[in-house]
């Protein structure tokens, strides 16, 4: 489809578990050890109970489409040859919302709240992108 590689982020201390998990085809999220609230983006402190005790837990990968847009502006060299393109926000079953892209659904068939499931695209030997495809149930 296109030869320009996607700009895949470099992991930092607060996101390494997420990106390492994606390479294993697992959606990893941070969860508060104190109150159990899931959170994204991963931050050192729980916004609900202010605890800094955290753990990384594999999430279900299930979600629903929260919103989406079609970008027509060419603002980044990596996207010059794939504009316009769709981007989406997915509300995960665990609660947090994640920015991503919906694949396997025609643009005019996208509906908010439609059930989605994480899919893992190995874009290179050491990077995997988490997108979302249709979920049957």
């Amino acid at each position, binding site marked *: 489809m296109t030869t320009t590689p996607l700009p*895949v982020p470099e992991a930092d201390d607060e*996101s390494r578990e997420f990106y390492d998990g994606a390479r294993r085809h697992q959606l990893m999220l941070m969860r508060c050890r104190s109150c159990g609230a899931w959170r994204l983006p991963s931050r050192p402190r729980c916004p609900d109970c202010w605890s800094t005790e955290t753990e990384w837990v594999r999430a279900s990968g299930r979600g629903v489409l929260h*919103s989406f*847009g*079609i970008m027509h502006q060419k603002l*980044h060299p990596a996207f010059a040859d794939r504009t316009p393109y769709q981007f989406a926000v997915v*509300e995960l079953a665990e*609660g947090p919302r994640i*920015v991503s892209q919906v694949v396997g659904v025609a643009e005019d068939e996208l509906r908010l709240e439609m059930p989605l499931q994480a899919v893992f695209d190995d874009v290179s030997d050491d990077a995997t992108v988490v997108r979302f495809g249709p979920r049957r149930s």
Partner: protein
Amino acid sequence: MHPPYAVRAMDGRELRGRAAISGLGMSEMGRVYTRDARDFAAEAIRRAVEDAGLRKEQIDGLLVNPGVTPLGAMGGVGLQNDLGLANLRLLASMNVGGATANVMVQYAAMSVIHGLANHVVCVFADAPLRTSAGGGGGAAYAGMGRSVRPSGMAGLYTTFGVFGVNAHYALATRRHMAMYGTTSDQLGVIAVAERAWAQKSPLAEHREAMTLGDYRASRWVVEPLHLLDCCLVSNGGVAVVVSRAEEAADLAQPPAYILGMGQGHPGDFRRKGWDVETETGAPIARERAFSMAGATLADIDVLQLYDCYTYTVLVTLEDYGFCKKGEGGPFVADGKLGPGGSLPTNTGGGQLSGYYMWGMTPLSEGVIQVRGQGGERQVAKHDVVLVTGNGGILDHHSALILGREA
């Protein structure tokens, strides 16, 4: 959905009408490339102080909102030195995005009421259009997520190409459309109404005629947003002077009395149960501002609503209760916001067609209307004007209710 909001026992009525906007100054605005942000600020302040009939020695407070200009280039001390303001008792830079103008006026009003200062200048200035050659109008606002070497969780915005403010407002607008059936044409009616006002304003950047057909034909920026859903980007500066009410009454201009003030910062908790795209901080700000003013929606003669996008106007109308949540589309569809309509809104063309000075766009036109200085666009009944500010991605909301009489 926001958690229950505890209402304080005091209603702020003791602040009603005790401060006023006594001066308004605007630099040249738009595609003006001969000044930097700090000089736009200085020029706006010079004009505001002259407008009020004050001398620079009487200015003892300065609040600065630098837009996207770095603080190092536009901090308060540099501006103070440029203008030789030697009597300051109050000085700060502030930034809650497009909510800042009203917020600066609120802190200024409380300061003059309680004796911390006498005449406080609040200024916004920015020069995002750096050169006539450099980039499109919105280049300075398209930077979010654009890093060439993204990192961390925020890097996901880069991976999926979610760039700039436009992308985030597109997501919010889509959400409202899907939840409530709001249509692109209903948003277009807002753009057309504001353009009709702009045609009556010598200050407006876009005065050429615009139809709903023109709106529909304007290119996509980020679907569902057309180009004509989006604000302009302008260079320039606007300043106001805030004074105690009794002093303002003796100055050169009719005072714009501050009857009500409020802020609401709902937080951007992007998770289940939080409708951050369709519910703003306006209800929190509204409760305080209207109780302070002792006013109801029926008292409002003119609206100046922050309009970075057409959608911002629509969701703000809902969140003030001018119509029910979700009914903003049908509510605006009859053109009631435009000239001759029952709810005159953004009478200078707003940020969509007038000029983009963040929260100073609605505030400056609010002051002009309360004074009765709107010329061809002046609304006949202009006793009470609602001015709103909005910052970030609907993260911050600020309200002022201005009155012709205290």
